[in-house]
């Protein structure tokens, strides 16, 4: 594989984490414009762990995931009462708060004679664990793909264990769900923690691929894209958001057919899909039909 293909595939996989994260909350009936904040927390958390504290890679990534899940759960705790537009604005505000904080957050330590760590708006350089370990881009792509497979497997496990069903139930009609005794608030907090952890995993992997991150990368538009991927790809399966990423990054961005008009095409595509298929291409009804067909 040439460098370009590897970089495109890496991008698709990394954005998939963010898209799945927003998708989990869409399933729970919540529209979040702020999942990029957890991507950022994962990137900074894992980056600090490996580059500044010199932790092993796996441990650093785990730290990033834990940070994202913890903050996701904590933020959801008060936000769980909000719904619709109010929830969307709260997530947007929180993500901007994280970005503004990272803009002034400086934490530099001397590592082998070089000052290393986040330096406010100047960003965070030298997250070099992967390169120092001598991992070529192709091998690191396998690491990313493995992690993505892990997330897909986790969602499959949660589907089998009915957590996803409970999430869909709560998302579809929280009042009815509450009447039947389902723990609506607890389910939504768990979903937010899960979504935070998944986005943070993507961020952690991204930071080690790019070696450099800065707060400006985690803007609202990143979060809006993540949300749009789930909406066009479909809410019926975890492959929905991945399909969304494939369409946007795989086709529109990488092939450069539409060159400068990419965002116009993407925006139009989102609008058309939302009109024709309000819950995306791979929506619940289609997945239900697929499941019924497979059972035969």
């Amino acid at each position, binding site marked *: 594989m040439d460098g370009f293909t590897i970089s495109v595939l890496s991008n698709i996989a990394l954005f998939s984490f963010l898209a799945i994260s927003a998708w989990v909350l869409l399933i729970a009936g919540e529209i979040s414009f702020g999942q990029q904040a957890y991507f950022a927390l994962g990137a900074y958390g894992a980056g600090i762990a490996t580059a500044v504290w010199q932790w092993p890679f796996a441990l650093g990534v785990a730290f990033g995931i834990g940070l994202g899940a913890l903050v996701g759960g904590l933020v959801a705790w008060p936000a769980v009462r909000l719904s619709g537009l109010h929830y969307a604005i709260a997530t947007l505000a929180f993500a901007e708060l994280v970005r503004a904080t990272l803009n002034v957050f400086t934490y530099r330590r001397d590592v082998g004679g070089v000052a290393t760590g986040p330096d406010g708006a100047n960003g965070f350089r030298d997250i070099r664990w992967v390169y120092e370990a001598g991992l070529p881009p192709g091998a690191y792509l396998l690491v990313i793909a493995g992690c993505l497979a892990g997330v897909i497997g986790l969602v499959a*496990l*949660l589907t*089998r*264990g*009915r*957590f996803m*069903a*409970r999430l*869909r*139930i709560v998302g*579809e*009609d929280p*009042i*009815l*769900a*509450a*009447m*039947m*005794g*389902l*723990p609506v608030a607890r389910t939504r907090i*768990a979903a937010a923690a899960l979504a935070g952890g998944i986005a943070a995993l993507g961020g952690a992997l991204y930071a080690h691929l790019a070696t450099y991150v800065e707060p400006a990368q985690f803007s609202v538009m990143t979060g809006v894209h993540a949300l749009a991927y789930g909406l066009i790809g479909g809410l019926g399966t975890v492959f929905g958001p991945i399909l969304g990423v494939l369409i946007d990054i795989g086709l529109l961005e990488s092939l450069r057919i539409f060159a400068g008009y990419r965002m116009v095409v993407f925006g139009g595509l989102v609008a058309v899909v939302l009109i024709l298929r309000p819950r995306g291409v791979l929506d*619940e*009804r289609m997945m*239900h039909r697929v499941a*019924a067909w497979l059972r035969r």
Partner: protein
Amino acid sequence: MLALDSLSKHFGGVRAVDGISLTLKEGEIFGLIGPNGSGKSTTINLITGLYTPTTGTVRLDGRDLTAMAQHERTAMGVARTFQNIRLFGNLTVAENLWVAQNGHEQRRAHFLGRWFRAGGEHSPEIGELLKFSRLHSKRDVQASALSFGEMRRLEMARALASRPRVLLLDEPAAGASREDGQILAERIRETRDRGVTVLLIEHMMELVMGISDRVAVLNFGRKIAEGSPAEVQANADVRAAYLGSKHKDEELIHA
């Protein structure tokens, strides 16, 4: 068994329910009628806990439900259907029943404990409910793909799945044909015969007067009459309340 004591609900200056007292006896079908906006649905919402009463209490077998959350009332044995059908459209028919049956156990069960539990919607009890509501051929169909009448039947089966002691039916025959109404009446009787007390809100007078043991009439949030169907139909206040529409009045007399 179910006792409402001077129950009121005010929305700003509107007294949707204004001091209603009712007592349902174990195993009876109790009809609650009244013109549109007389407070029937609000009464059900107060019993199930969707609304908090301004004043008054709701008791089930002497236990005060007034401060309980909706799901606690469900666990106590209060179940309902909705005037505007509410189902989980993305779930199958059987799954809708499974949720109603197990919502409560799900709450208590440990989060991880149920991870690997699957296939619960194939329980014999759910099979029986499907047969009872004539939905057995639709068990794996998404609820949103059902016909209107099937959705109504699923709602009632869903209410029964939580094993209620008292079932609140909010206009179950709305939009139904006369034959469907007769089948529904049969189902409501069967439900009562299984030991479930029924509170029935309905506009189809034939249905209410035909199957209710007792009937109460609401007007402007107050109870204006209560008694056997025959007594209520003969009541002058009731006729006056319905006289706004001549048609309704005749319907009431001929029913």
